[in-house]
């Protein structure tokens, strides 16, 4: 279908975009890559009165390492991450996940921050943001706040972002060589949203024991979820195959799965166990 009518604004600066957001509030929406918003409008599920297109704001087109954080501006597109944007586990994890996001011609437009703002339950970037502890820099006219990933995801397609706010930047920790990151997802056709995914990050101490562990699951509930018990079960010992298997089994039990006709709850739990195990094993295989 064709999109419903709207007023179009193409600000050239962040300040101008924030002023437009303040003016249009609930009626206005940011247009970033458009790869989720435009289909939603074509289905007439969204009818924003105004679109504020940020694509001409050069200051948002950034992706840089600073003080051990990777700072990802609102116009950094998915395709940018297909090759590591920083050396080490963080860049490698992003590159590994990027190729699972939609299709190549969608990745040329869709943005990292757009994914976080849209908050699809099966978004790869959202799952990574929760796993690694992303921090969102949110601006509105005359104000700025930082929101940790743990407070960001509130429900399906719902985040802490207010109607007059811009997600200007998301940052991720740049993990050192003592970290092992893993990623695995399952979908029925290439490019589809995943039925389940797991992102894992383990820090190994000099003795080869797990000193820190993070496991996040995506596509299985309304928001990405942390598998806290599973991660804690790995601490203080070497990551042996048996322990990884046991952690994966714990991950499969520790959440309330979304259920639908194609994916009953027990199938989803089984997928979570398999994806968590694959992500953990894959992260240590290299």
């Amino acid at each position: 279908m064709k999109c419903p009518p709207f007023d179009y604004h193409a600000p050239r600066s962040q300040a101008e975009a924030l002023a437009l957001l303040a003016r249009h509030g609930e009626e206005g929406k940011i247009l970033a890559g458009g790869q989720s918003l435009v289909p939603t409008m074509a289905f007439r599920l969204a009818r924003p009165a105004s679109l504020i297109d940020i694509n001409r704001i050069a200051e948002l087109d950034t992706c840089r390492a600073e003080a051990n954080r990777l700072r990802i501006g609102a116009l950094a597109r998915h395709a940018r991450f297909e090759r590591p944007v920083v050396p080490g586990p963080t860049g490698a994890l992003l590159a590994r996940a990027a190729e699972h996001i939609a299709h190549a011609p969608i990745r040329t437009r869709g943005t990292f921050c757009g994914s976080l703002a849209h908050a699809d339950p099966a978004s790869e970037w959202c799952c990574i943001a929760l796993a690694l502890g992303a921090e969102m820099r949110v601006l509105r006219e005359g104000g700025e706040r930082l929101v940790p990933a743990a407070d960001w995801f509130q429900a399906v397609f719902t985040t802490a972002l207010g109607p007059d706010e811009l997600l200007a930047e998301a940052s991720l920790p740049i993990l050192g060589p003592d970290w092992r990151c893993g990623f695995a997802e399952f979908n029925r056709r290439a490019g589809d949203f995943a039925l389940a995914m797991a992102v894992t990050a383990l820090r190994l101490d000099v003795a080869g024991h797990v000193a820190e562990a993070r496991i996040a699951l995506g596509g299985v509930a309304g928001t990405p979820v942390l598998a806290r018990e599973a991660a804690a079960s790995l601490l203080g010992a070497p990551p042996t195959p048996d322990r990884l298997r046991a952690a994966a089994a714990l991950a499969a039990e520790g959440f309330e799965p979304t259920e639908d006709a194609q994916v009953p709850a027990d199938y989803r739990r089984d997928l979570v166990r398999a994806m968590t195990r694959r992500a953990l094993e894959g992260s240590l295989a290299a």
Partner: protein
Amino acid sequence: MSKTPIRLTVNGLPHEVAVEPRRTLADALRDDCGLTGTHLGCEHGVCGACTVLLDGEAVRACLHFAIQADGHAIRTVEGLAAPDGSLNPLQRAFWENHGLQCGFCTPGFLMLATWMLEQPGPVDEARLRHVLSSNLCRCTGYQNILTAVRTAAQELGKWREGATPA
């Protein structure tokens, strides 16, 4: 709804058209520029029939508003053949390898493959399959499309042998 004048450069030629903001790039190309080679299947990003190159990048023209492309350069299937109508190596490979049946998906696949072959570095079987999995075809069963693009890549010196996934 009021219309805004925009300028598009399509296949190297300037087009000045007036569009409502909600007009997609695909609709503007077809209905305002008269270039109906770009097809629309799903109009929500799934099928890839509308694939065009925007400033050299493959995009879904149904998920991009024409007004956003003001001042930008677009390439469509109409720009592939030589002015005398002779087919380029990619188009010829589709013809010779039965890479199309009804032809509805063909402009999208041609632009997708054009983009892939213009990216730096060689293409191998895994890359070929990964990129071409972006678009849908209801007729060919894909094998002849893969063969056509592989043949063109070989002819253009862009092919690298690698393991063929099962």
